[in-house]
């Protein structure tokens, strides 16, 4: 049975339709790449699933339920933005997550914090952008969630940190969970994908297993992406 089921999902902002009649069925135990050019609706889709956008049309079922109180408990969401208050320190954030999520593993979080060489008492406002991203990733991956939604987890970090982030994601990902990872850095990440969803032009362009895509086109997912969404630039 699908863990996430989307049926004829539509979402627009003003006159602009971002998601147009999107239907998908996503099963547990997979890491799925959510790929597409800027403004194609990747973040919007993740926000709808996380319960941050509720004015959409169409049907969504997460573990058989509409997005709400129950589904928020299943989902561990990493947004693009820094959502922690500037005054918070990692220890405050751990207290906060521990109070609201029964699946939050504080020991695991502290271990990851040491791994990333972050200080338990350093306020978020004194951290660099990269450190803040690591901090949020720790909070998200320290949960034993059934669904992980990661929106550009490596957006603003250097290549070495990208590699460390990927290691943390893989090490802490639950085998029976579903992970949807939206990214532009396909080349760096495609090795961990089981499947890939290509969104573009407000619609679903492709949804297949990564092995099938490589076999069918004889190219990597990154190359297929560049071909599908290529745009001509005259210099």
């Amino acid at each position, binding site marked *: 049975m699908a863990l996430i089921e989307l049926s004829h999902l539509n979402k627009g*902002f*003003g006159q602009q339709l971002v998601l147009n009649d999107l239907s998908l069925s996503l099963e547990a135990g997979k890491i799925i790449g959510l790929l597409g050019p800027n403004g194609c609706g990747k973040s919007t889709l993740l*926000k709808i699933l*996380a*319960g*941050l*956008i*509720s*004015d959409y049309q169409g049907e969504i079922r997460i573990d058989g339920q509409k997005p709400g*109180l*129950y589904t*928020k*408990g299943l*989902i561990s*969401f990493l*947004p693009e*933005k*820094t*959502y*922690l*208050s500037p*005054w918070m320190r990692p220890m*405050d954030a751990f207290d*906060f997550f521990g*109070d*609201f*999520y029964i699946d939050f593993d504080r020991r695991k979080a502290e271990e990851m914090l040491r791994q990333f060489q972050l200080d338990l008492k350093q306020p978020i406002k004194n951290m660099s952008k990269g450190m803040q991203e690591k901090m949020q990733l720790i909070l998200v991956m320290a949960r034993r969630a059934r669904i992980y939604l990661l929106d550009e987890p490596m957006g603003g970090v250097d290549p070495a940190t990208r590699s460390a982030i990927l290691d943390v994601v893989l090490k802490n990902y639950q085998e029976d969970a579903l992970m949807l990872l939206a990214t532009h850095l396909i080349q760096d990440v495609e090795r961990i994908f089981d499947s890939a969803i290509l969104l573009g032009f407000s619609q679903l362009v492709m949804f297949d297993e990564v092995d099938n895509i490589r076999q069918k086109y004889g190219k990597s997912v990154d190359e297929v992406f560049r071909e599908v969404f290529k745009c001509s630039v005259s210099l």
Partner: protein
Amino acid sequence: MLGQLIKHEFRATRRAVPFVYLITLAMAGVNYLTVRLGIQWLFTLTMVFLILLAVSEVIVTYVLVISRFYKNLYSNEGYLMHTLPVRPKDLLVSKVIVSVTWMVASYLVLLGVFLVVIAAAAAQNHQTLSGLYDTFIQGSGISQIISVPLAVLLIALYGLVSICYVLAQVFFSIALGSTARFHKQGIAGPIVTFLVVYFAMQLLALAFIVLVPLGVEFVQGTSGQLTGLHLVGEGMLRMLLQPPKTGGVIGLGSVVLMVLGSIGLFFATGRIMAKQTSLR
């Protein structure tokens, strides 16, 4: 989960709000000290500062709790708060409880400051605060019209309702002004929404004062002094149509609106948070 939300809300706000109270209370202490030391020019100076500080302390508290509501629910921090496994109405209730608590505390600080100022002024004239109180109660004759504890209770209740009414209008405006249809307007969305809501509620208040059959009739004696207050089942409509020679009725419809409006606006805010949330 409501308890956890309230706990973390206090934890987040406790570093900013009480700081404002401490500054005000410290200034009140300095003011009182100047009287004890008999430094007249410093007393006048600190008293002016103190009154300004006490009034701005209430305004600053309003600004802090309102900006906290917006920032925590509708800016980047909203990405955390709206994905918590809690009901949207619990998010709202926790914000209301904590905001009202801080506002009540700010008014108590304001009251405390005024008592210090009056006590200091009385001390300069070799009087005491309790002496001034007795003079006021006897001179005004208020104790013959209404029992003093009841009057204090009614004023406190009115203050509480007023705080809730202001917060209800602001929180509703922020929630509505942050929905998808106002995204292009940015922060102007909640501000314009508030201006519209405020104007509409003022018009409604006027209608309620005149039309709702609930008021206080004040009775005047032959020399014009106040001799009685009675609750009556009429608003100000009759008084406006046929102005009486003495006494009159003050419509309490606005109080009814404040109670009903607060409940209605908080309810609508909860519905918007549950059904129309759309973070940028």
